């Protein structure tokens, strides 16, 4: 009995100390949502810090392709364009609440790249309504860290 408990504790410690790649990717996506969320009380310095933190989630050659209802489709290429767009959004919006729900991670066989599908729930400004958008992320492992290489929106209703 004691041996089984020790083994279970050991396994639990192992999973905490050496999490699986799926868990790391999930954590990354969850943390991305927190970083992309701003509240009204966030000052300029906090917002600027969040922008620079946000850029850290993306690979140098990352691409974001947006094609959502109500806005013209556009693509952001590279960290500079992403930084510019994030800074613009964080400056103009009073609040931005981002949640990634139903996150599904598919690891490649080499465990160096991952595809993530999720539903993004976004509430911007003082709007009572929110937007829901299916999204697809591609991540790759760079020097031990998972970085986003591609983000694209998926149209649910055509």
């Amino acid at each position, binding site marked *: 009995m004691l041996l089984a408990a020790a083994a279970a504790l050991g396994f639990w410690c192992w999973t905490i100390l050496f999490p699986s790649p799926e868990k790391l990717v999930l954590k990354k996506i969850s943390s991305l949502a927190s970083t992309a969320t701003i509240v009204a009380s966030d000052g300029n310095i906090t917002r600027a810090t969040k922008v620079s933190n946000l850029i850290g989630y993306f690979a140098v050659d990352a691409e974001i392709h947006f094609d959502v*209802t*109500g*806005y013209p489709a556009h693509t952001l290429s590279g960290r500079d364009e992403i930084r510019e767009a994030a800074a613009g959004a964080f400056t103009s919006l009073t609040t931005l609440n981002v949640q990634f729900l*139903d996150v599904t991670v598919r690891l490649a066989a080499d465990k160096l790249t991952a595809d993530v599908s999720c*539903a993004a*729930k976004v509430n911007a400004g003082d709007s009572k309504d929110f937007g829901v958008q299916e999204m697809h992320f591609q991540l790759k492992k760079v020097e031990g860290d998972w970085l986003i290489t591609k983000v694209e929106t998926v149209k*649910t*209703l*055509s």
Partner: protein
Amino acid sequence: MQNANESRPHWLQVLTIGRRPKTTLIRIAVLVVTCFVTFKFVLLPIRIDGISMLPTYHTGQINCINRLAYLRHEPQRGDIVSVRLSEPGGLANPSILYMKRIIGLPGETVAFHGGRAFINGEPLDEPYVKFSCDWEHAPIVCGPDQYYVVGDNRSMPFDFHTQGRAERNRIVGKLLL
């Protein structure tokens, strides 16, 4: 001679597991299985969030989706359905679904003129649309497996209202109440 008080179960036992524990356990098991089957395969409990179905449904209302509603027949015009964001097999266990009303059936053409919906060129009677609407949109043809879904609240601009053609396999079920 046995004392009557000794054979009577303690009041705490009666309160927690009843006078006949075996029967109580069977009842609990049946209840658990019934709930599991009902909420796993038949009814999907939902909490409504958002303004797109106003005034018919508003944020905070609790309802259920009947997953078996379309076993015997296909979705009908006017049905309020839940539509999954991704194709089946996309997102593992979708916790977020669109809730919309079907106005266009497979093969039909849906258009909006002067805020009114037109199906195959004929105006559609929609008593559930209460807010003023000024939508103008060219005809959209539904494919053989597509339904045109839209919310009842059409007071926002056309482009900001999530709507469009949904494949049959994305329709999870019909709203129960």
